[in-house]
């Protein structure tokens, strides 16, 4: 990161000449003054809630009743032994793997398709990207109508959301439509940072199209692919809007994701904020582990 702009005390001493340490502490004070709004935001809306969720996770904390004293480790054991806990974990993982694999393969294909800049490719890029301007909730509402038996323009009596299997795939289709352009864009940035002479060298060595892709493009694209994988896995593990709107967790609770379970524990029926807080801390911990593993795995193979 360029540091040339940082006001080093020695540089400013040339401009005006009070003592070095006085100048330095004045710079530090000014710096803190500018950082104060960020610091306030972070402390009030991030650090304090993290502390509070920790306290809630060990307390018997009702939605309306408030704090009713210590309740650990019951909050955690109750959350894990919830009837829907393991089905939700299993479904979330299944959904994450499906979405990530399909999205990344498709996004890579699209990126390769439109990587040369031309007018036509510009139009294509924009068409693939437009869905990602929509909110996830708006896109889900759109597909809710698209999938409905009454309004659907798709001929035949297909039940898009009626069985666990079709509900899962219908949601995956929605997510692929909404995010393919977004990941295509990220991969396109990666593709364009590969210098042209690398391809030239591969061509001179007599590499075919597939060999070039396999041994030149893919390895050099690894950082971008790693970023996409991490974003996609994290986003899918925390899926909520699409299932809340499209399936409401149905049919028969077959599409309840882990975040939906947290929401239901806290605000629907159980009204148990303590247990929901405990579950959300478990999710936070799991997410950290998954991301550390991903960082290690994807970074380690970079060279």
């Amino acid at each position, binding site marked *: 990161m360029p540091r040339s*702009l940082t006001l080093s005390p020695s540089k400013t001493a040339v401009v005006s000449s009070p003592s070095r340490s006085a100048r330095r502490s004045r710079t*530090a004070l000014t710096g803190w003054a500018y950082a104060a709004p960020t610091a306030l935001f972070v402390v009030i809306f*991030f650090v*304090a809630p993290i502390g509070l969720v920790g306290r809630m996770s060990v307390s018997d904390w009702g939605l309306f009743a408030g704090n009713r004293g210590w309740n650990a480790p019951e909050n955690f054991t109750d959350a894990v032994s919830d009837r829907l806990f393991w089905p939700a974990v299993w479904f979330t993982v299944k959904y994450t793997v499906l979405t990530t694999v399909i999205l990344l393969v498709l996004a890579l294909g699209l990126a390769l398709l439109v990587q040369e800049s031309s007018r036509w490719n510009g139009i294509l890029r924009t068409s693939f990207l437009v869905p990602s301007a929509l909110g996830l909730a708006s896109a889900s509402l759109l597909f809710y109508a698209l999938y409905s038996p009454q309004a659907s323009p798709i001929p035949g009596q297909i039940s898009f959301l009626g069985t666990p299997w079709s509900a899962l795939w219908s949601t995956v289709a929605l997510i692929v439509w909404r995010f393919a352009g977004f990941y295509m864009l990220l991969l396109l940035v990666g593709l364009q940072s590969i210098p042209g002479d690398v391809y030239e060298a591969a061509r001179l060595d007599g590499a075919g199209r597939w060999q070039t892709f396999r041994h030149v493009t893919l390895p050099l694209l690894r950082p971008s692919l790693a970023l996409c994988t991490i974003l996609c896995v994290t986003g899918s593990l*925390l899926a909520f809007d699409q299932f809340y709107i499209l399936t409401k967790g149905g049919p028969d609770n077959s599409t309840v994701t882990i975040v939906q379970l947290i929401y239901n524990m806290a605000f629907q029926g159980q009204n148990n904020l303590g247990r929901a807080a405990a579950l959300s801390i478990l999710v936070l911990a799991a997410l*950290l582990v998954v991301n550390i593993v991903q960082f290690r795995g994807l970074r380690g193979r970079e060279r």
Partner: protein
Amino acid sequence: MSRLLLRTPQHVLTGGLALIFLFPLVWASLASVAPHAGTQQTDGWGFANYDTLAHYQAGIAQYLFNSFAISLMTVLFTLFASVTGGYAFAMFRFPGRNALFLLTLAILMVPYATLLIPLYVLLNSLGLQNSLIGLALVLSMFQLPFATFMMRISFEAVPGELREAALIDGCGSLRALQRVLIPAAKPGLITVGLFAFLAAWNDFITPLVLISDSDKVPLPLAVANLRGQVMGIVDYGATEAGVVVLALPCIVFFLALQRHYVRGFMSGALKG
């Protein structure tokens, strides 16, 4: 000519693919004004579905107002915090600088749900429960990692001589920020503002948890609620109309500011 002919199959294939991506949007726009049994628009083309939407509960004007108020406040709060914060991180050395920057980025690592449960309690004790301002403050906090990072690299990209010249000319640091740095970092500002607007306009789970007063919900929640409430039968026509109203500002902003949108991702992709 022969090159053009050779390329035609590819054009057909890729064009077809583009149409698949555009189809749902085109369909929703057409279906919202097309005649269809079971909706308010039963014969002939027209805007009856939009009329239903306009008079749903508090009326669409109220929900649009909520959404615009939340989005504008989020943009303002985010810009204010990220411009001052980005300036501090880019230009000044102070104790705790790196710790605060990393802490701001750490917001990205924590799931929304983990933060929303304590925030629900916390906003109550701050007297901000059920308020658009409280919601906008929370949404701004979610925007801070990207916004602060973006403004920091935008300010760091401003040539050093420019800022030093301003300081020697006797500008205070605030004047230097206003006169020199903000104009120079304008593309970064637009990107941050655009992302904050889109995120606030589209967010669903945050108002779902934090807003319980049905007159104060933003448009996405109102349209989602509308589905089940017309005598238990889903009014798909009104839903389609709602989707169009929701999507229109996003698509207009996206098409008008596409370059800034792409830039935002590029900085993330290159530095992330």
